[in-house]
């Protein structure tokens, strides 16, 4: 009996100790626990053998190596086990939403029926432009609604009433949020407008302190910034109320009826490598060969470009000066070509073969249509995506514009020309004197002029071409500065709100686009505003904290819920703030200058296709954010001091401003994170795909494989380990393109267990045209690109921004001068220790009886 007992104990000891070395305190603890459990405890407790209790319920604590904080961990875990953990259950059916969905089901069909109505069809608004609009069909209803709206917006309420009002409407908002379709979405917009207008009214009418000159001055600045944000919100709702989602329109069966198209590929200083793929892809476009002329417009006067154009058989146009940069380049080529349509591709935008067939259809149906624009799609990560490592996971900066805003503009016949991936009818373009040269954003200005002459525009959302994104943060910011300056110039030189020819709706679309680029100063104001109270101790919003809370919070909450609903697939919540914050400092000055002196400033070319050899922190670019971070951090400390030493009637105001500062620090952290440039070593960008190919071996055997990525110089294939073993030095890769098969000789560069890297041998033009056709220019390449993107969930998105923000501060400390990296190590250790206190999830296995 005694031997039995000791052998059981020994077995249990071995079970816990395993092969690891047991420390002396560990031995004491383990032996005493085993003795205690064997002598005093029941055999089984809570479904598991009692001697294994620590292992099951305290998985993060090691009995054989006890640590100093273990008692605390045990207390936390016990508390969590008893009070917090909910036993796992089968998924409960949620009654209300399900019932709601059932009720709504019927209405949904009717709503979708409405979507077939004529006025929601493309071109309706365009034909309507020709007729005199019949408006205010029901003036009485509209007047009544207006009176109600004015009442809702202007009536002052006491805190409790305001609370009830905002909460009740919020409940309705959440109900609408669950309903599918566009009409509930419109109702949500109405609710958000109501609350936001109410907020702005309250801000204008009762929050300025006229007795304190400093507070009044700063208060007015903040109010102006808020008015700007409110106006952008309003116009944004208008712009995106009903994205058109225009489908492609088919062409006549007989190709003799298809018009002739000139393709312009302007280039200034880009590498020939970048341009080659684009030219090859243009040569493979599905269009009658006698109706397609390709022009390489070289503003760099480079011999290798001229030779390349001659070798592959495309036209080459150059000129003696570089007047008006890209716009001048295109205008020069316009004079030397004569196709009925002009398709423009930046030299790094590779069109898919179906580009013309899918986008030309609308021209043939509408003689007034002058512009068809398609999205700019990028197959390499932009600096945001690369430095935050969220490429193809979170919608990027351009996602909102090309996914939603252009689509919304299209309803209002206000699609902008974006400089590339677009087709313009030659007649109208020559009528306005070619591409506009007065501003640095020649593209938007050109479409503005076309619209002024009464021409129509169209937007097709399918990504039909793809290109390289800008490489470095500084280049990216440089490009945005150019856009911002150009838009501000247009606002001054050719203001869309005035001048002839435009419909009100088009004026608003253009105005909002320009307004968007003026966001620099308001954003800086928001980032500095809480400091007015914390540092200068002046009330810039002269109202009790509770009232500010009750007005601001609904305003922000409503607009973020509605925007998450409208923009969810194209821009995740809070990311827009990060993008905007990064740009704010840099666009603030150029836009202001351009507003006052529109003729200043030059065209700077966006550099693409470069390399970043070493990971580094861009101290120059991030300088303004670091300053803002320091100011906000200082404000935070002062706020804490005020909380401690200040008068008690100020505590709520201090808390409010502290909250604001923390939010600012969060967004600024994201901006700082972007400034830490990650490595970019490959000159050729690899495009991740997945389609089947065959590998032909010299022996005459064919292997089945999946192509997993490709670049202009080679590809990578995945195949079974057995098959991978058979691949030798030389293979032919057989790819399929719309039923045609092409074979490309390649050499093996590396071989893994299931992966083989291949390099293209034959780089002759005829082979490259086919290769680009089978890879970059595949018609369906970019369509499925967005499938991996997650849907926007505001809280998840908040967590993501928070995590990149922390990441940003870490990178900042690590790259900083002497004591900072050490500080980071200490903080990391402390955080790690705090994390280890966290209760751990447990897993009770059903033991055999």
């Amino acid at each position: 009996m005694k031997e039995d007992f000791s052998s059981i104990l020994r077995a249990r000891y071995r079970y816990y100790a395993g092969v690891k070395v047991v420390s002396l305190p560990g031995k004491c603890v383990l032996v005493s626990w085993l003795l205690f459990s064997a002598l005093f405890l029941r055999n089984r407790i809570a479904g598991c053998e009692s001697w294994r209790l620590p292992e099951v319920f305290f998985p993060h604590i090691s009995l054989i190596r006890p640590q100093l904080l273990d008692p605390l961990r045990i207390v936390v875990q016990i508390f969590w086990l008893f009070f917090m953990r909910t036993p796992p259950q089968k998924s409960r059916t949620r009654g209300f939403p399900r019932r709601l969905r059932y009720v709504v089901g019927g209405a949904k069909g009717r709503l979708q029926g409405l979507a077939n109505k004529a006025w929601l069809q493309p071109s309706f608004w365009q034909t309507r432009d020709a007729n005199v609009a019949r408006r205010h069909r029901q003036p009485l209803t509209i007047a009544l609604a207006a009176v109600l709206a004015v009442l809702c917006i202007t009536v002052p309420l006491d805190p409790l009433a305001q609370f009830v009002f905002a909460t009740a409407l919020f409940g309705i908002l959440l109900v609408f949020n669950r309903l599918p379709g566009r009409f509930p979405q419109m109702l949500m917009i109405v609710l958000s407008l109501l609350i936001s207008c109410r907020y702005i009214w309250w801000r204008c009418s009762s929050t300025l302190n006229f007795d304190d000159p400093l507070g009044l001055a700063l208060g007015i600045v903040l109010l102006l910034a808020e008015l700007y944000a409110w106006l952008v919100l309003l116009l944004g709702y208008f712009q995106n109320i009903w994205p058109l989602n225009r489908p492609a329109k088919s062409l006549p069966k007989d190709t003799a009826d298809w018009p002739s198209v000139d393709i312009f590929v302007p280039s200034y200083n880009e590498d020939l490598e970048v341009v080659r793929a684009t030219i090859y892809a243009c040569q493979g476009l599905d269009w009658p060969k006698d109706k397609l002329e390709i022009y390489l417009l070289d503003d760099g006067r480079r011999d290798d470009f001229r030779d390349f154009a001659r070798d592959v058989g495309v036209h080459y146009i150059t000129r003696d000066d570089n007047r008006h940069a890209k716009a001048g380049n295109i205008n020069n080529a316009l004079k030397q070509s004569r196709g009925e349509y002009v398709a423009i591709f930046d030299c790094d935008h590779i069109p898919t073969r179906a580009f013309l067939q899918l986008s030309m259809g609308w021209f043939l149906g509408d003689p007034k249509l002058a512009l068809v624009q398609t999205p700019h799609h990028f197959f390499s990560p932009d600096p945001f995506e690369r430095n935050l490592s969220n490429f193809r996971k979170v919608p990027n900066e351009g996602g909102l514009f090309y996914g939603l805003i252009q689509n919304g503009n299209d309803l209002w016949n206000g699609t902008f020309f974006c400089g590339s991936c677009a087709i313009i009818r030659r007649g109208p373009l020559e009528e306005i004197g070619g591409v506009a040269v007065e501003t640095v954003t020649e593209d938007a200005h050109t479409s503005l002029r076309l619209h002024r002459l009464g021409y129509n525009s169209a937007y097709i959302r399918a990504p039909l071409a793809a290109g390289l994104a800008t490489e470095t943060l500084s280049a990216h910011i440089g490009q945005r500065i150019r856009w911002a300056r150009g838009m501000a110039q247009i606002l001054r030189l050719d203001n869309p709100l005035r001048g002839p020819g435009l419909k009100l709706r088009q004026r608003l679309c253009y105005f909002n686009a320009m307004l968007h680029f003026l966001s620099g100063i308001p954003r800086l104001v928001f980032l500095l505003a809480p400091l007015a109270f914390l540092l200068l101790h002046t009330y810039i919003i002269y109202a009790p904290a509770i009232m500010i809370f009750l007005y601001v919070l609904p305003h922000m909450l409503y607009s973020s819920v509605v925007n998450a609903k409208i923009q969810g697939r194209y821009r995740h919540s809070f990311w827009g703030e990060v993008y905007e914050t990064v740009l704010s400092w840099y666009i603030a000055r150029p836009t202001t200058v351009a507003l006052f002196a529109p003729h200043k400033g030059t065209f700077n070319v966006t550099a693409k296709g470069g390399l970043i050899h070493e990971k580094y922190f861009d101290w120059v670019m991030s300088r303004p954010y670091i300053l803002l971070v320091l100011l906000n951090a200082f404000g935070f400390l002062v706020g804490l001091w005020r909380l401690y030493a200040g008068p008690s009637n100020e505590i709520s105001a201090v808390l409010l401003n502290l909250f604001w500062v923390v939010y600012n620090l969060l967004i600024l952290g994201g901006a700082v994170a972007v400034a830490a440039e990650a490595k970019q070593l490959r000159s050729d960008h690899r495009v991740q795909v997945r389609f089947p190919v065959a590998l032909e071996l010299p022996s005459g055997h064919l292997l089945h494989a999946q192509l997993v990525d490709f670049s202009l110089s080679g590809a990578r294939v995945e195949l079974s380990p057995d098959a991978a073993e058979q691949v030798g030095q030389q293979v032919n890769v057989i790819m399929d393109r719309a039923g045609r098969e092409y074979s490309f000789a390649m050499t093996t560069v590396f071989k893994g267990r299931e992966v083989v890297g291949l390099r293209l041998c034959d780089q002759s033009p005829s082979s490259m045209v086919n290769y680009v056709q089978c890879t970059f220019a595949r018609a369906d390449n970019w369509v499925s690109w967005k499938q991996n993107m997650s849907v926007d969930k505001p809280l998840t998105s908040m967590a993501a921004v928070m995590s990149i923000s922390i990441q940003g501060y870490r990178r900042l400390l690590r790259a900083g001068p002497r004591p900072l990296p050490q500080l980071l190590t200490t903080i990391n250790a402390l955080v790690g220790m705090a994390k280890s206190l966290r209760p751990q999830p447990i897993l009770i296995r059903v033991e055999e009886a």
Partner: protein
Amino acid sequence: MLTITVSGMHGGVGTTAVVANLSAALQQQGLRCLCIDANVDNMLRLALAVNPEEKVGWAKASLEGASWKDATLQHDDGRWVLPFGELDADELSRFFPTLVAGQSPLHAVVADLASLPLDCVLIDGPTSRSLPHYSLPGVDLTLYVAAPDAASYALLKQDAGHWPASNYRILINRLQPAQALASAIANLIADDFEEQMVPGVVHEDLIIAEAQAELASVIARAPDSQAAQDFQSLALWCQSEFQSRVE
């Protein structure tokens, strides 16, 4: 039940290999298959691993007055095969008149099949020009196998106009995309007979000949090969084609 006749545009395009490997793919996808050899050569049995000494077959059975069911053999993977039968010169001269006069015993065989637990019957038929002159039972689909060569293209241009359009499809076998001539002819055929093409081709792959020599199907012999992939896609297409015909 899906009945397909496979016929080569001319000799040597790989008809028997298509029947053997397509049936293996269909069987693997869960369809119970029977392959019938309608060729005097009696070569299909080798592709289905029947003992070369075995002389049985439906033609022989009919001459001897025996039941064709006794001549039906089963492959290890579950496929059934009904060989033509090894006929000597005398037997052949007795057999041919029945074939041409429209009284082929194969009609009786196919009539009996309906009651058997089968999903798919593949007939390894004679070449395209002879096909109308053999009295073969009616089928759901005739699959003409063309090689990407001049002869196949010429015969297609000459004859395809006379075939009932709803009932046939053209399959390109033994395609070598690296060869300019082969891919040019394949493209010509695909352009001229756009509506009638089987989507996808079967590539020239040495493994097909090797598998044939080893009395195995490429599916079993080399599942990683492109040939196995080609036949699997072809089998899937046959199934979907059959589904759409049923509906």
